[in-house]
C-alpha cells in the first residue's frame, strides 16, 4: 500500500513550495488516476516518489508497504518496487538500449535477491516483452531513446516497466504523444501488469485513457493539494466542467 501523508515539497534550490499537503492512499491491487491543470504539481509528485533530488520534502512522509521511502536513494526505491514512467523520457547517447535494459534488470534482480539473467535468458525475455508492446528489438540496439519518436519513447518506458516488474507503478502522462493504436497497445501493457500485488498511479490529462485503463479512483490535484477524489465518473465530469471550480482560493 502507498500512503502519502501531508506531503509538502519545495524545489531544493528555491523557496518555492509546490506540493502543499498531499494526502493519498493507493492500496495494493488498485489503480488510481491523478488529473489536474498544468503546473499543479503532478510530475513533481511523481518525481518525489521516485526520489529525484531536485525536490525537497519539507514536511510529511511517503510510506510504501508501511515503511518510509524518503531516505532511500532512487535505485534503492527501484529495487523496493517503485517505477516511474517519465513524462519526458530521457535520451542516453552512447548507451545501447539493450545494455541499459540488461544492466537495469539485473541490478534490480540482484538487489531483490534473484539470480541475474544470462544474456540468452535476458534476450528471450526482452523479445517477448517488446513483442507484446509492438517494439522492434532492432530499435533497442540503438542508444537509449535517441532518435525515438515521442510515442516510441513512451512505449520504451512501458517496456522498462515490464522488465523491472515493479510493484508501485507511477505513469506520468504515458498517453500523451501516443497515436490511437499505440494507446491501445500501451494500455494493454499496463493492464497486463495489474495485479493484486501492485499499486498503480496514473497521471493523465485525458479521460480517453481511462476508457482503456479503468481506474478504481480519480483524484484532482490543483495548487499543490488533492482537491477532490471520486470514482471513474469524476474524469467524465471534469471533461465537461474543466478545472474552473478549483480556483486559487480553493487551495
Amino acid at each position, binding site marked *: 500500500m502507498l500512503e502519502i501523508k501531508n506531503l509538502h515539497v519545495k524545489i531544493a534550490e528555491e523557496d518555492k513550495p509546490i506540493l502543499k499537503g498531499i494526502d493519498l492512499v493507493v492500496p495494493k491491487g488498485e489503480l488510481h488516476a491523478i488529473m489536474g491543470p498544468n503546473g499543479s504539481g503532478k510530475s513533481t509528485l511523481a518525481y518525489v516518489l*521516485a526520489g529525484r533530488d531536485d525536490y525537497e520534502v519539507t514536511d510529511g512522509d511517503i510510506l510504501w508497504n508501511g515503511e518510509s521511502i524518503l531516505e532511500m536513494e*532512487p535505485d534503492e*526505491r527501484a529495487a523496493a518496487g517503485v*517505477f*516511474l514512467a*517519465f513524462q519526458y523520457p530521457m535520451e*542516453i547517447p*552512447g*548507451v545501447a538500449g539493450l545494455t541499459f535494459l540488461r544492466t537495469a534488470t539485473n541490478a534490480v534482480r540482484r538487489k531483490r535477491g534473484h539470480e541475474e539473467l544470462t544474456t540468452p535468458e535476458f534476450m528471450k525475455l526482452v523479445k517477448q516483452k517488446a513483442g507484446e508492446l509492438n517494439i522492434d528489438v532492432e530499435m533497442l540496439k540503438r542508444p537509449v531513446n535517441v532518435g525515438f519518436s515521442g510515442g516510441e519513447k513512451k512505449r520504451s518506458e512501458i517496456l522498462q516497466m515490464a522488465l*523491472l516488474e515493479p510493484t508501485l507503478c507511477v505513469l506520468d502522462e504515458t498517453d500523451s504523444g501516443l497515436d490511437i493504436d499505440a494507446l491501445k497497445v500501451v494500455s494493454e501493457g499496463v493492464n497486463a501488469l495489474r495485479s493484486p500485488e501492485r499499486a498503480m498511479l496514473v497521471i493523465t490529462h485525458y479521460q480517453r485513457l481511462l476508457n482503456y485503463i479503468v481506474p478504481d479512483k480519480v483524484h484532482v490535484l490543483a495548487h499543490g493539494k488533492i482537491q477532490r477524489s471520486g470514482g471513474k465518473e469524476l474524469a467524465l465530469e471534469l471533461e465537461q466542467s474543466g478545472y474552473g471550480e478549483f480556483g486559487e482560493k480553493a487551495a
Partner: protein
Amino acid sequence: MTVAVMKTKAEQSFAEGFNEMRATLPGSAAVREAREGAARRFEELGLPHRRIEEWKYTDLRSAVKEALPARSGDKLAMTIADVIVAIGPLAQIDAHRIVFVNGAHRPDLSTPGSLAGLEVESLASTLEDAQATEFALSGFAGQDSNAVLALNTAYMSDGAIVRVHAEAELEKPLLLVNIRAGAQPCFAAVRNVLEVGAKASARIVEAFVSLPGAAGDGQINTATQINVGDEARLTHVKIAADDGSGVTHLANWFARLGKACEYRGFQLTQGVNLARNQIQVAFDGEDAKLDLSGVFLGRGTDHVDTTLVVDHAVPSCESRELFKGVLDGHSRGIFQGKIIVQAVAQKTDGKQMSQALLLSPDAEFDSKPELEIFADDVVCGHGATCAELDKDLMFYCQSRGIPTDVARVLLIESFIGEAVALVEDEAINEALMGFARDWLSK
C-alpha cells in the same frame, strides 16, 4: 647577445647521461652524428617551458624534476605470460606482436614468423645500415626546435621499422608493445617508423604499458614517423596505459598522408601522470581523409596534454578530430588543435571537437582550438565543451535500479565510446574500452 640560462637538474642529467651512454647507443657513424647534433640541440633548447606558446599549459622544465637513467630491458627475465598480463585487454586481439622491454627489442617475447605483406625490423639492428638510417631519420624535417624529439634522436635505443608492401592487406593487426618493467625507474626512448605502401591496408597499434611490479616512476619518450601511401588505408592506435605513480609519457607523431589515402589515428592515454601527445599531420596528396581521435583519462594530479597540428597543404582533403577527456581529482587536461588550410588547399573540409567531462570541481580542462585559413572555398569548424556528469541522466539510470557507481561508469563509457567508435575496428574498440573500464574500476 646570448643569455645564459640556468640548466635544471633534469636538463643537466639528460646531457650527462648522453655523454655516458653515447658509446653504447646503436648506429653507424652517420647515426652517431645525428645523435650528437640532437644532443647539442637539446642542450641549447632545454626542456620546453611555459613561455614557449605551444607549451604554455605544459611546463616540462618545472614538471620534469629529474632524468631517469636508461636501462635496457634486453636481459630482464620475462616470459610471454608476463607480456599477456602487461598488455591486458590487448591480449584478446589476434595480432602479430613485436615486444620491446624498457626500449629494447625482445624477439623472444614477440610473435615468431611474419605476416604476408609486412616487414618489421628492429631499429637498432638497422641503424648500422646507411640507407635504413636515412629512412629512419628522414621524416622529421623542420623539427629543429622540438626539444622532446631532439632528446629522442639523441637517446633512441630501439623501435620498429615497419614496411607494409604496396597493395598488401594485412590480415591481422600489428601490435608494437612497449613494456615498462623492472623495479628500477628508467627512461626509454623509442622510435617507430611506419611505412604503408600505396593501396595497402593495415592496422597498427603502439602500446605503452607496464608490468605489475614495475617501478612507480618511469619516463617514455616516443617518436613515430608515419607515411601513408597513395590510396592506402591505415588505422593507427597509440595506447599509453600505465599505472605507475610518476610516469611521464612524451610522444610525437609525424604523419604524411598520400593521395586519396585514409588515415584513422587514435590515442588513448590513462594512468600517466604527465603526458604530452604531440601530433603533426601533413596532407601531401589530394582527396585524402584524416580521422584523428582520442580519449584521455586523468585523476589525482595527472596532466594530459594533446597538441596537434593538421596541415592542409593540398586541395580537397577532409580532416576530423574528436578528443574526449574524463578528468577527476585535481587532474588537468589540455587540448590544443591547430588546423592550417594553405592558400592552395581549396575544398578543404575540416572539423574539430574536444570535449571534457569533469568529475571533480578541482579538475581542469583547457582547450585551445586554432584555425589558420588562407583559402576561401573551405568548410571548417571547431568546438569545445566541458561538462559534468548529467545529473538528470544519473537520476534516470538510478530510477531504473542502476546504482550510482554503475550509472557513472555507464555514462562515462558512453561519453568516451563515441570517440572510440571512430576506430571502426571491433576488436581494437573492445580492447580500448577494456583499458578504460580497468581505469574506471580503480
